[in-house]
């Protein structure tokens, strides 16, 4: 067991621990040696070129912007003013706030998500299938809607929770106040917990329970087994999820702007927003410099993960057959069931109840019988711009998520299962867009696509949006698939090749087949990431190519939050549908649970 679980990669040196030129399908490699040698070089070059276009090019535009006193196209001078301005007490406070909030919310979310994933994947808790879908729902609700709902539920003055608290206890002091550090963290957790949950739940499912059973038989307690075996084997996926979620926390905007700004809590993104949107002269140099400073911080984190995981093997899916089973909890399964339901009630039922209720009243949160109406549903139904945006978004969402996952799977394959020179560069290129706050990156895409030669018709078309979405989604796609690849033992690939399967056949029938659940999760995350993306969309769309996030922004700022609620509910129905299909597919293909 241990040799499978925690063996050093150096122990595997000499075997087929990773694909190199010598491990190509022997028959094909023998037949077309030149083709494969050059094909690999061409493939690598092509991959680097694609990633460079998607991530390096807009980043280079932004880097130029951070070093130049004026944005591209305007005369100015090169200087370090943007970076020099970073060294201030005010920015240190902003940095401390950002890191502190993100760290706390990620740690809490990770703990909660691991607990929920374990309950759903490894125990006999009742209705686990339904719970799995319900737990992930908060992730798919537009943050502006849940923020509004939580603003109504948890404001200190007349929040529903506090009114109920006062009525029950007679106390004047509020029970909760969303407009505080706690409120910011709680709202962020509603997105990061299901995000991490989706990331780790299939890894839990794909783990051979024999490893845990051996531990138990060797005398370890249930807690020791969880910590030393289950948790340790989950390290690649949990650290990936932690880092992705931590970085997303640093880049979070809606929660701090909604609940932090009114009480003076400033974080990196609200500072950048202030520099770009609140000044008469947008401070792009300072904003981009701040973005790059954040990027360095995040890169250090990623490097830490590489260092921590480097040289260790975490394979749990081996050539040896295993029968995934679940832990019998006895009466405690009702306790685990209650934990899942409590999470659902707190993060879905409460805010969603507000949205659902509000969608039937003329005004958000004003529940009077004479204000009951279906007008918001009619309004959305009659809104031609909304339906046009829906069509554009579906095309971009389905196409973008699919292309992104394919690209992510290729990048993950190269970076985790080969020893090709240049794989680290590819990994870094794929990471870049995730490390730059979306608000700044959106400007980078605008500059990059607008500055392309006139003969390349990308700017102002759906292609610009598609490329931006692929770039933004690739880091997640790479993390999801590489975490899944890390769990698959190389001996299965070896076995396939020994039995005469080609490289492509092995890739398709072994790696992709086994990583399929993670691929499906990545697709869903990317798809909804595209649906929600606003920073780049608002700068790249053109009349006729509006997308849903832009239309939602227009409706929101146009004073139609009730219609946005209807759209939020519509999106939830879509989520339920897609998740149902996804889980059916996974169940049919992989899971026997």
């Amino acid at each position, binding site marked *: 067991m241990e040799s499978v679980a925690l063996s050093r990669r150096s122990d595997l040196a000499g075997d087929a621990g990773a694909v190199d030129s010598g491990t190509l399908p022997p028959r094909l490699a023998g037949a077309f040696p030149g083709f494969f040698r050059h094909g690999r070089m061409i493939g690598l070059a092509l991959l680097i070129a694609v990633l460079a276009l998607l991530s390096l090019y807009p980043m280079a535009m932004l880097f130029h912007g951070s070093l130049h006193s004026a*944005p*591209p*196209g*305007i005369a100015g001078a090169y200087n370090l003013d943007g970076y020099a301005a970073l060294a201030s007490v005010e920015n240190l406070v902003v940095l401390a706030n950002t890191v502190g909030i993100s760290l706390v919310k990620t740690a809490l979310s990770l703990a909660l998500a691991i607990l929920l994933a374990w309950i759903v994947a490894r125990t006999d808790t009742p209705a686990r299938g339904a719970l799995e879908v319900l737990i992930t729902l908060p992730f798919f609700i537009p943050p502006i809607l849940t923020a*509004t709902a939580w*603003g*109504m539920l948890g*404001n200190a*003055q*007349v929040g529903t929770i506090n009114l109920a608290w006062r009525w029950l206890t007679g106390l004047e002091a509020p029970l909760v106040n969303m*407009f505080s550090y706690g409120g910011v963290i709680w709202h962020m957790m509603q997105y990061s917990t299901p995000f991490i949950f989706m990331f780790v739940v299939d890894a839990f499912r794909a783990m051979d329970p024999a490893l845990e059973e051996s531990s138990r038989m060797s005398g370890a307690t249930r807690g020791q087994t969880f910590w030393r075996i289950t948790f340790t084997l989950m390290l690649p996926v949990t650290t990936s999820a932690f880092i992705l979620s931590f970085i997303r926390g640093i880049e979070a905007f809606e929660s701090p*702007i*909604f609940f932090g*700004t*009114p*009480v*003076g809590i400033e974080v990196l993104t609200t500072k950048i927003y*202030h520099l*770009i*949107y*609140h*000044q*008469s*002269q*947008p401070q792009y140099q300072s904003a981009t410099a701040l973005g790059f400073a954040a990027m360095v911080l995040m890169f250090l984190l990623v490097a830490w993960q590489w260092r921590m995981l480097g040289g260790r093997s975490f394979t749990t899916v081996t050539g040896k057959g295993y029968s995934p089973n679940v832990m019998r909890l006895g009466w405690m399964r009702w306790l685990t069931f209650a934990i899942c339901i409590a999470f659902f009630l707190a993060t879905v039922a409460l805010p969603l109840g507000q949205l659902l209720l509000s969608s039937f009243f*003329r*005004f*958000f*949160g*004003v529940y009077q019988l004479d*204000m009951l109406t279906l007008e918001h549903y009619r309004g959305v139904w009659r809104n031609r711009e909304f339906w046009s945006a829906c069509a554009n978004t579906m095309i971009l969402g389905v196409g973008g998520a699919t292309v992104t996952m394919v690209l992510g799977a290729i990048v993950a394959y190269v970076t985790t299962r080969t020893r090709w020179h240049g794989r680290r560069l590819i990994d870094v290129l794929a990471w870049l867009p995730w490390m730059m706050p979306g608000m700044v990156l959106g*400007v980078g895409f*605008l*500059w990059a696509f*607008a*500055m*392309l030669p*006139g003969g390349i018709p990308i*700017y*102002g078309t759906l292609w610009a949006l598609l490329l931006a979405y692929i770039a933004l989604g690739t880091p997640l796609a790479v993390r999801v698939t590489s975490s899944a690849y890390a769990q698959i033992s190389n001996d299965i690939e070896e076995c396939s090749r020994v039995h005469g399967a080609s490289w492509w056949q092995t890739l398709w029938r072994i790696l992709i087949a086994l990583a399929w659940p993670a691929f499906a999760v990545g697709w869903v995350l990317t798809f909804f990431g595209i649906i929600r993306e606003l920073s780049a969309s*608002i*700068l790249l*769309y*053109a*009349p*006729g190519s509006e997308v849903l996030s832009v239309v939602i*922004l*227009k*409706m*929101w*700022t*146009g*004073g*139609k*939050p009730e219609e946005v609620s209807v759209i939020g509910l519509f999106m939830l129905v879509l989520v339920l549908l897609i998740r149902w299909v996804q889980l059916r597919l996974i169940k049919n293909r992989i899971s026997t649970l």
Partner: protein
Amino acid sequence: MLRRRWLAMAMFLALATPTWAQTDAQWQKVVEAAKKESKVLLYTAAVGHSQHKEVARGFEDKYGIRVEILEARPSEVRERVRIEQAAGRFLGDVHHNGSTTTWLMERDGAFQPHGGVPNARHMVPPYEVTELHVPSNVASFAILINTNLVKPADEPKSWKDLLDPKWSGKILSDDMRALGGGGLFFVVMHDTFGKAYHEKLAAQKPVFSRDLRNNERRTARGEYPLYLPFNLANYSSLTGLPIKVVIPAEGRPYVRNDLAVLKNAPHPNAARLLIHHFLEIESQLVYANSGGDPVVKGVIERTTGDMRPFLATKAMGTTVPERQDEMLELARQLYK
């Protein structure tokens, strides 16, 4: 001698007459050329507002020229225009934005002379047409109160009443440290009452939120009794809620929106015609009926009854683009 005088007079008249004035016949040629161009692209910072769409629909019905609209927030529109022009992509025709952003873009050379529109002669002071921009509509700001929480006797009568300690911690406000209604409020109060006004108001600990339309609902739900500055254009959409608009005795701050033709606009005649159409009485009525001051004469008397009292109040003051940065910095110092 007499001939010389006539010549001098003719030269004076030629110089005094705006270069963009034209005869009916010349204007007809513009209209015909505009119809041949068949479409016009409007870049506007009025995200989600319905008024410009209604005006655009009227234009399409009247002239058969399609109006495409690109909406984004003020600095986003500005950056799109800037980078497009820098890259040699001249896509937009008409630009619609607040007067400060328009002023900055004029300074950047983003516009070309519009060439004049006949309806400019109906413009009312203090609004003025220049060679590069034409005022299109005016947004006015007041105080929104929750009628369940504020008794009629307690309603503020003056902007100075907000300094009464009873409102401490009870004022919800657009962010005064940012470009927008809050920034406008800061400038106008500063210019009217001085810096001391803001020092005292800051001591009242107003709560800032830039979620403007939600702020109105938060006030209506009773989270805060007062919200400022409230854009009158949103009043009609809140009918039925326990709210009331209060315009203090000193008047209401206002901000002008301008139209301009973008440099190398692909449809310059249609752009010019659209600007002309924005100044038609029926177009101005669209804005006036939703609480915006019209910029041409002959409109106020035709507005609906519930808006006329608001529009009859005094316009108090507006932003000064040249001082905007200085004011934002001062606001940041005072409201920490």
